[in-house]
């Protein structure tokens, strides 16, 4: 039998339906792969017993002919999603051994559709980071290495565990979340496909909050089709999240292979950064050429407020985070470090429980919301946000169907290489992705090529609100043209 872990989700679904193999076999293959890949540190919690139980149940359902759309498909779950009875930490010490009594809406929909949980995936602490180095469980290794090098590279972040596990064939797909690029940047660093849907498309209920107005769940998968299949199960209106939108979830898979002829693709001139590596430039042109060859029309567009997006993002996101993380106080659950009085208990708990990056953002957020600074920072950043949103609206109003940009300004970098002295160096990773969160739009990262050192690079497509389908259609065109990329196994 061929290695079951090398199948795409779509292929595995076929095999399961044809009873070529069982979900239990598929699950075991992945559990073995996980065990053999512990050096990557992608999983922070493996749940083999639960996985096998869910696989058996899926096999029974498939046998009865009522397997759901994801019946028997083994997935990894980012540790930001609350999983009932399974430790959920957001990869922060402050949550300790917190075990939720509830299941996030997104994961419960995956289980409803028959998926199997292999375990919980590493991420940057509270999803704050672009390299997965801020996790309390330590960094995640990227399955990709530079040609001829043994240096361990980061898989990006914050969904680094998700991207690494999918790229290393440890799971058929993974849940992820994206607040400023946390799905798309790691997808680009690992040659996987990641889509951040429109804000409101997936419920945030049961997902540990980072920045509520920007956070959105989405999948990381091995192909565009796989990501479409996963998103279909993850998306949907949830009365428990009033920011989720009550719009029917389309059959995203039907968009795969749909003609893109006549579609207008915007190329935003402001994304052409000074000193942008030539290979990123080349990749971008190539991507545009592929879309043109498929019948799309390319137009130069302007998103004039792009340069303000990153600074504004680093005001809005920490502001919300400083408030969202106030609940981790050592009083009700998670870590508690005693003190002489309640203030000391707070101080000791939060100093011990939060890592440096989280502390930094809590402090930035507290600062920008404080009396006397609110108008100059938070309010102004919100105004910038409105302008960024309007840039996109103007662009779409001119008939543009989607916008093509690079996903990241560079390929994956080494563990410990960036942000040590200057956190802004790390923040710059999100330069192409944050605008999308600020505007609440859908964005997909698709592998498009490699750099000179053999590392994968991705392109990003930005769509109209709730038009994920167009992104899947266009993403498929890029995937077909660029081919799929699999890392050589070294672990």
């Amino acid at each position: 039998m061929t290695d079951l872990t090398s199948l795409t989700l779509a292929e595995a679904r076929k095999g399961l339906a044809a009873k070529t193999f069982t979900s239990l076999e598929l699950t075991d293959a992945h559990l073995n792969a996980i065990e053999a890949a512990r050096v990557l540190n992608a999983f922070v919690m493996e749940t083999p017993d639960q996985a096998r139980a869910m696989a058996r149940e899926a096999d029974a359902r498939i046998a009865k002919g009522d397997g759901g759309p994801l019946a028997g498909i083994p997935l990894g779950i980012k540790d930001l999603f609350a999983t009932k009875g399974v430790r959920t930490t957001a990869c922060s010490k402050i949550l300790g051994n917190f075990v939720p009594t509830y299941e996030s809406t997104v994961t419960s929909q995956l289980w409803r559709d028959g998926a199997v949980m292999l375990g919980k995936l590493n991420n940057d602490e509270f999803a704050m980071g672009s390299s997965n180095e801020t996790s309390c469980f330590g960094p995640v290794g990227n399955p990709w290495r530079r040609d001829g090098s043994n240096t361990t590279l980061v898989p990006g972040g914050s969904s680094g565990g998700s991207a690494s596990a999918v790229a290393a064939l440890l799971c058929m797909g993974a849940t992820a979340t994206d607040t400023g690029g946390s799905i798309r940047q790691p997808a680009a660093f690992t040659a996987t496909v990641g889509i951040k849907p429109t804000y409101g498309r997936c419920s945030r209920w049961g997902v540990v909050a980072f920045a509520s107005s920007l956070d959105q769940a989405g999948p990381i998968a091995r192909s565009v089709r796989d990501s479409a299949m996963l998103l279909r199960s993850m998306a949907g209106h949830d009365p428990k999240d009033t920011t989720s939108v009550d719009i029917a979830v389309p059959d995203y898979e039907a968009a795969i292979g749909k003609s893109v002829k006549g579609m207008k693709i915007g190329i935003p001139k402001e994304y052409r950064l000074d000193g942008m590596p030539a290979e990123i430039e080349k990749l971008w042109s190539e991507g545009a050429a592929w879309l043109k060859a498929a019948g799309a029309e390319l137009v130069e567009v302007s998103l004039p407020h792009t340069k303000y997006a990153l600074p504004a993002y680093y005001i809005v996101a920490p502001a919300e985070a400083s408030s969202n993380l106030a609940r981790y106080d050592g009083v009700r659950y998670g870590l508690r470090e005693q003190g002489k009085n309640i203030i000391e208990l707070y101080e000791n708990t939060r100093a011990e429980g939060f890592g440096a990056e989280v502390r930094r953002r809590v402090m930035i957020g507290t600062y920008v919301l404080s009396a006397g600074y609110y108008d100059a920072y938070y309010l102004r950043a919100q105004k910038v946000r409105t302008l960024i949103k309007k840039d996109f609206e103007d662009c779409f109003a001119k008939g543009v169907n989607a916008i093509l940009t690079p996903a990241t300004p560079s390929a994956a970098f080494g563990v410990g290489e960036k942000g040590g002295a200057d956190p802004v160096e790390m923040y710059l990773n999100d330069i192409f992705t944050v605008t999308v969160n600020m505007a609440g739009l859908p964005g997909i990262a698709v592998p498009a090529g490699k750099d000179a050192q053999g590392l994968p690079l991705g392109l990003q497509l930005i769509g109209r609100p709730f038009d994920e389908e167009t992104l899947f259609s266009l993403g498929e065109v890029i995937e077909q043209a660029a081919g799929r990329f699999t890392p050589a196994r070294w672990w």
Partner: protein
Amino acid sequence: MSTATHKLLKGATGDWEMVIGMEIHAQVTSNSKLFSGASTAFGGEPNSHVSLVDAAMPGMLPVINEECVRQAVRTGLGLNAKINLRSVFDRKNYFYPDSPQGYQISQYKSPVVGEGEVLVELDGGRSVTVGIERLHLEQDAGKMLHDQSPTMSYVDLNRSGVALMEIVSKPDIRDAEQAKAYVTKLRSILRYLGTCDGDMEKGSLRADVNVSVRKPGGPLGTRCEIKNMNSITFIGQAIEYEARRQIEILEDGGEIDQETRLYDPNKGETRSMRSKEEAHDYRYFPDPDLLPLEFSQSFVDELKADLPELPDQKKTRFVVDFGLSAYDASVLVAERESAVFYETVLDKLGNRARDGKMAANWVINELFGRLNKEGRDITGSPVNAEQLAAIIDLIGEGTISGKIAKDLFEIVWQEGGDPRALVESRGMKQVTDLSAIEKVVDDIIAANPDKAAQVKDKPQSLGWFVGQVMKASGGKANPQSVNDLLKSKLGI
């Protein structure tokens, strides 16, 4: 604002005027909390009414309880206030164990209800209009339990997340009497509306009182806020104390520190809780978990159409329809239960137009008097509205005299029973049979020839004869018939 005279405080340098504003926190009457489905029932075991949202578990999100919004709008309508069709929930950030989220969801810049006003009646027919600045919805906090362990404090989150309406007045209140009357009136309106039970002992209604003093008509002074008052009497005491404290400082050449103070009812004084420097920076910002609260004018109109009659309207109706004095009408409408009782009596009366006013007198004087004497409230009255209506019917139709009615009331109070049947069985019927009364009159005149002779010169001594006849008839003679007969027999 009307210009009712108010109390000035005498100081060494002359008169001082108090300027008072209030923030009332009224717990919204609803089955579940403002943003979660947990019960709002009072008095459950600690932490028995706590949902995942109330405990601020990771990833939990608030969902607005629409009934609480309706209650806030009803209250706004009852305060003649502007209803804002769009308002925003903000986070008020602070750390305390009774606030599990680390912030309170409140409304800061855009409250659901804007400006309104309340007419406040004072003694002697005076009244004052107090402006309402705003009303907003917010979450209540949990309760700290400091007496459960020698080394730790515990927290009960049952109340955490229960909906509160914060009703902010303008600084239109000028003395303790007005302040007390304002709280009383506001409480009454809330209870009529059914939007807050007004139970101050249980903490359903609490007030923060802002007090400053100034020379009459002069510029506003620096204010102090007295927090968390849950008794109308204490509010009055605290204001008096606080105003005198401030006057003393100012007259000694000092300055008032803007601060938050607490009132100690045992010592009868306010003391500092925290200074302006120690005040929290709440870092308010719009709650990104909640969309702005928006509803249509028709939503408001529907609530308006279903609004119950409020005390001011009811008072006017009592005055116009039943000829009650403004004072009596105010007494009846002050408490919703009293008004309901009176109106039930009215419903049961045989002739409302004729006896409505008498019914008011009976409810206020006989019933309230007796209830007060025994320290009972109207809901525990031994005489129900139907019984009282029957007694009044009996007076109105001339079956018993007012005096007999009082005896009858006493019997019903003590023993219960149908007043009409009691009158029959105990022979309490008024004697209207003229021949029977005539005999008694004749007997009395015959027995008192001297007095009968004098009465022509001293007509006021007729009363003595009336009394004698009534006494001889056991109070059952119709007083008007007795009067008429005596006059004709005595030739006056």
